[in-house]
């Protein structure tokens, strides 16, 4: 199988078009299952009562906010190294969704912090570094929107993404490196999770739903970008002509 074939915009456009409904459908089903587990199967928390149920969005959103940034930086690096058009487009397509998840993580964090800590916001290392992540996402989108030449905008944005990726480990380890009000990780690869099994399952299913959602939305956005960039090529002209 030749993987490079899929890097060609002419192949990517129809392929992504076929994949988007599948990922969107999977996202919807997983979200429904995850919400069912979260609200009807997972028990009440002995310390936080029903308030802890915010975890089912807060943690998946926070994971996605960091993960999407890393993937975006990865495509930026590939784009800069090999000058591949589709890599830059994928990096661009991911930014708004990453920003959305970062905002959701901060918002749900505030709505969780208020009843449990007594404050919507504190200038804690975890919260502050996550806020910087939101600024990085918004910054790269603003930077790319401000540069008229799309190729230059691609490279400038990619460079910013690579510099900004340093923030991701800072967010992740902030709860270890500094004394934070934010709690440490409840789930880690090296030890048993410190939570009830059904709670963990609800969270993991919701995280999987967020993954599928991200893939669907990013592919849909990338398709539009590809069509815009390739509008003078034969395949794009034929496609635009065909849907008369």
């Amino acid at each position, binding site marked *: 199988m030749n993987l490079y074939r899929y890097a060609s915009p002419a192949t990517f456009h129809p392929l992504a078009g076929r994949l988007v409904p599948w990922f969107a459908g999977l996202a919807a089903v997983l979200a429904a299952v995850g919400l069912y587990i979260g*609200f*009807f199967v*997972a*028990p*009440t928390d002995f310390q936080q*009562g*029903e*308030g802890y*149920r*915010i975890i089912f*969005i*807060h943690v998946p*959103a926070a994971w996605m906010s960091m993960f999407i940034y890393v993937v975006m930086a990865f495509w930026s690096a590939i784009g800069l190294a090999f000058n591949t058009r589709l890599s830059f487009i994928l990096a661009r397509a991911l930014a*708004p*969704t990453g920003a*959305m998840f970062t*905002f*959701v993580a901060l*918002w*749900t964090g505030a*709505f*969780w912090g*208020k*009843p449990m800590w007594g404050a919507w916001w504190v200038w804690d290392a975890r919260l502050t570094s996550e806020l910087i992540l939101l600024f990085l996402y918004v910054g790269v989108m603003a930077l790319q929107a401000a540069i008229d030449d799309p190729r230059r905008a691609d490279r400038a944005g990619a460079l910013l993404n690579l510099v900004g990726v340093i923030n991701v480990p800072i967010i992740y380890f902030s709860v270890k490196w500094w004394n934070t009000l934010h709690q440490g990780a409840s789930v880690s690869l090296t030890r048993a999770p410190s939570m009830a099994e059904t709670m963990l399952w609800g969270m993991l299913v919701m995280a999987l739903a967020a993954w599928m*959602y991200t893939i669907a*939305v990013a592919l*849909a*956005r990338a*398709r*539009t970008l590809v*069509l*815009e960039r390739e*509008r003078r090529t034969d395949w*794009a*002209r034929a496609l*635009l*002509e065909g*849907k008369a």
Partner: protein
Amino acid sequence: MNWESWQAFWAMGGYGLYVWGSFGMTALCVVAEVWLVRRRRVQVWQKLRRMQAWDAQ
């Protein structure tokens, strides 16, 4: 089953504002993003078709 009634479900043991404020905003963000992506697709499609018709003249 966790809930005695629908009322208890919406009350979330006194945390209703916080739980539904979180889930509500998330739902709003997802709906808005999907709507924006679709609208952009339609707008770009129309723009490109206009440009192509213009080029053909």
